[in-house]
């Protein structure tokens, strides 16, 4: 991890549900326990690049609470690290399961 990396905290309910709304159309559907985490992240990012380029940065901004100016100063690798860490800190796989259990479905 590079210096000046903000410490990420789990999101509140309101922001977590918003994160789910951003990520849900891009998350891989056919997921098994053997799916490596990096493959999961790669498929998500690939889908965002193809369908909604803004979603990736929206997700990073939401998870890090940085503003656009601060994010623009970071290189792409740093942003990717933040994205991956954000998914981990917010237990996105569990968030998806919970939201789907409530009946919230996107994508």
């Amino acid at each position, binding site marked *: 991890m590079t210096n000046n990396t903000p410490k990420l*905290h*789990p999101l509140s*309910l*309101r*922001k977590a549900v918003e994160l789910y*709304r951003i990520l849900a159309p891009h998350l891989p559907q056919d997921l098994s326990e053997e799916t490596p985490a990096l493959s999961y992240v790669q498929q998500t990012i690939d889908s965002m690049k193809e369908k909604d380029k803004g979603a990736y940065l929206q997700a990073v901004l939401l998870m890090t609470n940085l503003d656009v100016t601060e994010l623009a100063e970071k290189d792409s690798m740093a942003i990717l690290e933040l994205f991956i860490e954000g998914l981990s800190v917010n237990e996105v796989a569990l*968030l998806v399961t*919970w939201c789907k259990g409530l009946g*919230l479905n996107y994508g």
Partner: protein
Amino acid sequence: MEIHAGRLSVDVQKAKLHVWFQLEELRGSIQTAAESGELDRLVESIFAYLSAASGIDKEFHDLPWREVALAVGQISKLNELKIKYPLFDARDKEDAPPWDYVGRSWFVWVNILARAYGWNVEYIENLEVETGIALLQEVLVDEQLNREFQWGMSENAFSYDPASRASKFVPLDRPNWMKPPFKPAKKIYINTNILPMGKVISLDEQYAKTTPLVS
């Protein structure tokens, strides 16, 4: 039951009838908000659910989502009904009457119980959930059986069939939850000895082959 959500520790008791009723309405609101994708309403309903159950309000708003989800799950489990009441087995959703309004359902319950037992609103609000629901169901059953008895003594309960020159009793319709549950059709096993042998010709296929299409 102690609920630990992050740094928050709250003692939550099993809800009495009125609070349980509110929690059920909020669960319905959570479900409809989720199904329609209304995120703001979903989040507000979840916080309202936690507030109604625990008596505290804003403290849940900044907690990590996982703690909030766990708290919702624990409260839901604490207040779930252990008995499956036929009263809640609504097979057909009935249209709301013209005099319906938001929040009316609770007062329907209070009216039925107060009329039957002479209780006041505060007493009914603090009934144990299982007791309240069971008594409500019994009052509704009694009222329906009384109506059926009155109906049976009325001329309208008998229809005359001119063909057979006999009167036939027409029972009063019951609400769906008082009717026997649907049973799937019984499978009938046909002995292979009586099944047709050889190639089975479908008359529909034959007709389709011989009747030309009209152009």
